[in-house]
């Protein structure tokens, strides 16, 4: 009598072999099965590719080009690991036309939502986003083929509306390029200077600033660049909010998102300019020499195409005195 004694533990079942060819996965898809196919091909979770596609769609938008192309040219798995027969030329043309139309529609929705929010229609845009979201919920519950995708255009609307709302962009001050050079304090509007979108230059060198006085200077810009030129003898105190962009007050810079720039005056006897600025997206600069202006097209160094530093501010490339407004120092 003999007994077979196992000499080793049973080996666990081997994972399914990775396919030799990249194929879309009709049985594992959210849209076209591209991410599912990539996950299966590389042997990783398809969610990683879905996350990458979504992130790249928001930052740069390359997904909007790559995904449709992959959907079109990568064949689907026929269920046995082999490519299913491809679509005919007519179907390819139809898919391309559909994708192009979808991209144009998405672009229009994107800009329309941003513009409407900046023009004061944020509540309407929010209402449409909520309505589409509720439509998607209803579509999911009723298994409606089309309604359950309504969350996609809702997200396309919500993204620009959210960015404009977060930046606080308001376009109620008009558009274009503005240039002001008041010759007296009375010529400065009591409500300050306001611009919806564009570029604004405010030259205050002709104002008769008297020592010991404070001149209020409210500035409100939705989208764009603002340059203030002040006499070197004036002490500028700043209270500025910028949704996204940068502030440069006589060489002191701060930039990024949700920028708050506060600089009170010291115990100076010089004339003061109290700058209260509210910018949505863009740049605000105060200079005491027009040649130092980065964003003013009229200055020698300004503008984005004249060799100026433009929007690409390098902290190591500061011009002029980086110690701020000398007129604010005591004495």
């Amino acid at each position, binding site marked *: 009598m003999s007994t077979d004694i196992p000499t080793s533990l049973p080996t666990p079942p081997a994972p399914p072999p990775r396919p030799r060819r990249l194929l879309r996965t009709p049985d594992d898809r959210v849209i076209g099965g591209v991410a599912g196919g990539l996950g299966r091909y590389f042997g990783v979770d398809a969610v990683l590719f879905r996350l990458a596609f979504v992130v790249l769609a928001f930052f740069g938008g390359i997904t909007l080009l790559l995904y449709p192309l992959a959907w079109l040219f990568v064949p689907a798995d026929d269920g046995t690991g082999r490519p299913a027969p491809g679509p005919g030329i007519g179907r390819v043309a139809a898919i391309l036309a559909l994708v192009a139309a979808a991209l144009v529609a998405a672009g229009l929705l994107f800009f329309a939502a941003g513009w409407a929010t900046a023009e004061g229609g944020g509540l309407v845009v*929010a209402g449409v986003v909520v309505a589409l979201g509720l439509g998607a*919920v209803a579509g999911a519950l009723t298994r409606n083929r089309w309604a359950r995708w309504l969350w996609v255009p809702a997200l396309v609307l919500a993204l620009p509306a959210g960015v404009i709302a977060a930046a606080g962009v308001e376009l109620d001050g008009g558009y274009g390029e503005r240039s002001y050079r008041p010759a007296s304090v009375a010529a400065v509007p009591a409500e300050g200077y306001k611009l919806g979108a564009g570029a604004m230059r405010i030259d205050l060198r002709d104002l008769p600033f008297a020592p010991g006085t404070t001149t209020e200077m409210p500035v409100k810009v939705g989208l764009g660049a603002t340059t203030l030129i002040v006499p070197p003898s004036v002490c500028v105190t700043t209270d500025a909010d910028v949704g996204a962009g940068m502030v440069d007050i006589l060489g002191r810079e701060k930039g990024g998102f949700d920028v708050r720039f506060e600089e009170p005056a010291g115990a100076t006897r010089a004339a003061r300019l109290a700058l209260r600025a509210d910018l949505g997206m863009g740049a605000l600069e105060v200079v005491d020499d027009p040649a130092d202006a980065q964003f003013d097209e009229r200055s020698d160094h300004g503008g984005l195409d004249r060799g100026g530093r433009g929007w690409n501010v390098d902290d190591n490339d500061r011009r002029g005195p980086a110690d701020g407004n000398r007129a604010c120092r005591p004495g």
Partner: protein
Amino acid sequence: MRRASDLAALTGGLVTVALGALLALDAAGVIRLSFGWLWPALLAAVGAILVASGLAQRDR
């Protein structure tokens, strides 16, 4: 497959309703939306949809 898409659509719908509500509150002046809120909210929204999609695929 259908169930997976339905769960993703349900989550996507709920997430966009929440985003729309945030936008409405900002437009009405109840809250002040900033980028400090916006980026995490958008990433959480996308993450919720992906998690729902992934969970449903595994349950299938």
